[in-house]
């Protein structure tokens, strides 16, 4: 995603709630985001009397502080913060924990549940199904549906023994 104000990559995502039905999303690079926020502060100071508490701002500054370096592509997490691009597939493993809040912010989710490459192996698919069943198990237990829970537990055992 590109910055709304310049051609750089957007790394700051700001949700501005103007009113109940008017939510605006702004995507900026770090530099433009700073400018935008400063302008807003100035503006807010002068017009706050008029608008009062209707302006609610959520700023997600997704700072990640790690000194880890990817052994495959020599990428540091700071490089990603500047460019918005990762260097190689292995980065997703190296910066796994740092990436989670970014993914949560962009997608609202952190776990893939679409297509798997067919060659990826059936055992991986089974693992995925087990994960899903475990989640279901949690939810039915919470709802105190114990009969259903027992059924799901049996399914999990069956899959685990494959």
């Amino acid at each position, binding site marked *: 995603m590109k910055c709304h104000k310049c051609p750089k990559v957007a790394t700051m995502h700001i949700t501005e709630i103007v009113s109940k039905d008017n939510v605006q999303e702004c995507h900026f690079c770090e530099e433009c985001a700073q400018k935008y926020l400063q302008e807003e502060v100035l503006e807010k100071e002068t017009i706050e009397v008029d608008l009062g508490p209707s302006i609610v701002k959520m700023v997600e500054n997704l700072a990640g502080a790690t000194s880890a370096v990817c052994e495959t592509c020599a990428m540091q997490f700071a490089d990603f913060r500047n460019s918005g691009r990762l*260097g190689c*597939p292995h980065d997703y493993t190296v910066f796994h924990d740092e990436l989670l809040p970014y993914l949560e912010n962009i997608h609202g989710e952190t776990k*893939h549940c679409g*297509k798997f490459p067919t060659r990826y192996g059936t055992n991986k698919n089974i693992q995925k199904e087990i994960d899903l069943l475990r989640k279901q198990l949690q939810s039915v237990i919470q709802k105190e549906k114990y009969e259903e829970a027992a059924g799901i537990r049996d399914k999990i055992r069956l899959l685990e023994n494959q």
Partner: protein
Amino acid sequence: MNFEALSKSSGEWLKGSGIESDIVISSRIRLARNLAGFPFPNRASNFQKAEIENLLKDRIQTLEFEQKFEYVSLTALNTLDRQFLVERQLISRELAANDGPRGVALGNLESLSLMVNEEDHLRLQVMRSGFSLESAWETINKLDDYLEKKVSYAFHEEFGYLTACPTNVGTGMRASVMLHLPALDFTKQIDKVFRALQRINLTHRGLYGEGSRFSGHFFQISNQVTLGKSETAILNEIYSVIPQIIDYERQARVAWKKDNGQILQDRISRAFGTLSSATMMTSDETMELLSYVRLGIHMKMIEDVDINTVNELFIQTQPAHLQKLMGSTLDGEERNTARAKFLRSKLRSSGSTPN
């Protein structure tokens, strides 16, 4: 590849056929894929990019798929030819502007294109005229399966298909539907639609994708989220919302005609009049006026103008297409003159407005 021959047709996406084609111009799905064991293009050396290109080119050309592919290396093309492919939506502006070894494999039906070394190693794209994401998905999913047998994709159990930008990770899928919404745009109701879309994680873009301007009242609606939802779930979300937008546009057209019929008629007639008699024409003005003529045809407010001619003109009047058709490179002013002449010759032979 013979671009001159291509320039005479409108290509798949502006064919103007298919389901709901008076409002839905085209449906498109793209999948972002990367090869395991290589850095993403932004961090790859030219040597590595050449290696990736050779590998993918070989695998794509030997693919036993329903369509055969022809590989075009971007480094071998001049600026005009690159622009030509961008206008036809066969490559992205990013691929045209990047440097280093890169290219595109084009299917023989012009509805499939596989970009190599764009932001990701491989971007598969399928295009359909009208509203048909389902058939687009069927084709691209199959093509993806075929390719996957020949190359090793970068895939992570938790994050799915790995991409250079985390906004594409997971399914790597961007599905978009291009709509022609002149009535909603003119009556300023379009912003309301966009706000509603944003709430359900759908986004809107101009004719040529991210960062492009809105022109000719064309809008692309696409999914923003690629992680945590299955491909089918994402497609269903788009599927459920497009008929509503089509409905709003139809209602807005009816209301517009009822409340301001004379003004609308005048606008359409003037658009046609200008297109068929002006002697200089910019591409922006052409898009705007063709949009009104297109609307006029679908609302039966203009007669004897062939919708296919108008659909073709949208693409043939773009700068690179125009130069291909004229057979020479033209500067801005020469283009405007040539464009006006081309429009006159295409439109004068037909068209009248009912009294």
